[in-house]
């Protein structure tokens, strides 16, 4: 599955140190069914979150968070829940290490940008150009630059995730 490189989305703002326990509490981990997980996405910090996404919306949805997003447990259920809930990108000032690699590995677009993380507010409409790492805040008429991905990670992303990358490599 290829990732859409240009994303228009409405921002949902979260704070610093959002843990994977916040994203998907452990009481839901007795399944790896992404659809089931998505029902409880972000439930640890905002019980209403999934309900808000359900509202008819012409644009997509994007999580904007502060520092150390996805800290704690290594559960890949966290990025899976986010992806399946229909979040097209996560923007943060920084990501916890395992969440970062999990998101890359499963093909959930993520971007690091301190300025975007601080300037974007809840409800802002943003335009994200993943290939250039450019973020436009349509509501505030501002532009932000994201950290570009290292070449190695770009290869995994363009293959559509780590397992596709593995399959491509094995064919060669």
């Amino acid at each position, binding site marked *: 599955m290829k990732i859409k490189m240009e994303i228009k989305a409405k921002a949902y703002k979260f704070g610093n140190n959002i843990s994977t*326990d916040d994203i998907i509490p452990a*009481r839901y*981990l007795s399944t790896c069914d992404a659809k089931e997980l998505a029902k409880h996405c972000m439930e640890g910090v905002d019980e209403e979150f999934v309900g808000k996404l359900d509202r008819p919306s012409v644009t997509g949805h994007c999580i904007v968070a502060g520092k150390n997003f996805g800290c*704690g447990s*290594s*559960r*890949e259920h966290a990025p899976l829940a986010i992806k399946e809930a229909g979040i097209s990108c996560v923007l943060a000032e920084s990501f916890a*290490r395992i969440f970062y690699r999990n998101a890359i590995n499963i093909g959930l677009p993520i971007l690091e940008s301190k300025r975007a993380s601080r300037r974007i507010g809840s409800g802002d409409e943003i335009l994200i150009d993943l290939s250039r790492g450019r973020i436009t805040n349509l509501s505030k008429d501002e532009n932000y630059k994201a950290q570009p991905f290292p070449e190695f990670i770009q290869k995994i992303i363009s293959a559509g995730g780590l*397992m596709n990358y*593995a399959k491509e490599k094995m064919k060669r």
Partner: protein
Amino acid sequence: MGMVIAEKILARHCGRKGVEPGTFIEAKVDIALGNDVTAPLAIEEFRKAGGSKVFDPDRVVLVPDHFAPNKDIESAQQCQILRSFAREQGLSHYYEVGRVGIEHALLPEEGVVLPGDLIIGADSHTCTYGALGAFACGVGSTDLAFAMLTGKCWFRVPETIKFVYKGKLNKWVSGKDLILYTIGDIGVDGALYKVMEFTGPVIRRLGMADRLTMCNMAVEAEAKSGIIEPDAETIEYIEARAERPYEIIHGDRSARYANVTEYDCSKIEPQVAFPPLPSNTRPISRVAEVYIDQVVIGSCTNGRIEDLRISDQVLKGRRVHPRVRLIVIPATQKVYREALSEGLLETFVDAGAVVSAPTCGPCLGGHMGVLAEGEKALATTNRNFAGRMGHPKAEIYLSNPAIAAASAVAGKIISPESL
């Protein structure tokens, strides 16, 4: 330029003479680990990618420890996925209830993870094994699937921060207090993408249990791994149990660190982490009246025999406070057996505690001690995020086993000195 131990281990596993921080590598892994929460997803990915045989049945390790003994039908199904896969693949390291323990206590005890190894595990506390002089880090399920298929994993070579512990340890201060103090100092993302290397005269005098506890919680500062260079203590521990040859690796004297921090341990008291972050630490002398409903002694952080011995020392001849539920969880069957023959379990039961089968259980709010709204718990575990042990409005405090045991008796958080 010289290399630190972490860089040396990574270089050896990707067939290079040297690696530098920031470089991306694909390295061979010695052990790839999964549990009943993370492995089912990895097994699914493995099959979807057309995998039929794992790269080496002796090096893929499956440990059903989180929701086992199975807490409900769903978790029973998850454990069954592991069991069937282990049988189908002929895995030599699969552990059934009755032989299983909490993965990060079990694998060092069994000699499965060894010095010089490169270990990945789909569990964030995989970093525990750094205490043996290995490079070990937590990854996700897809990483585990990739490793099961190829025997490899991708890494960005991390920088290393050196933490030097000097001085004399105060009474009741353990490895748990040193790591809580350190996380309190640098913050929950203070070592993001980096390795925390623990060294200094205090570390050299620490036993393996305390070293494992320290490396276990490196991830709570968002480190990729914690690591301690092996010494005579490590070798003595390993020699008795290693199931295959291993290599003792040391960093070069000329190695460069991203940062060096020194601590004078004579100034460090037992620490308590207040909710909702492990970095929210206070010395025990500055903990005011915190009344608690539940105490948990156990987990991959503090469920080893040494932890139970300290708890026994505090609890012997005393009773758990009437308002408190004390849950003691030996981390492995071997720890359970030792605690039984040393009379520790008798102390716990006589004190009015419950002793559970080895499981991660309450640490992640799974089972065996989930918290209700508004309850307060003191645990020897590793995370006190809101909702971690059950209801999002329950509060979790973290400490070492001695403080936990004393607090179970007092009904509030105190030092054994104040009993």
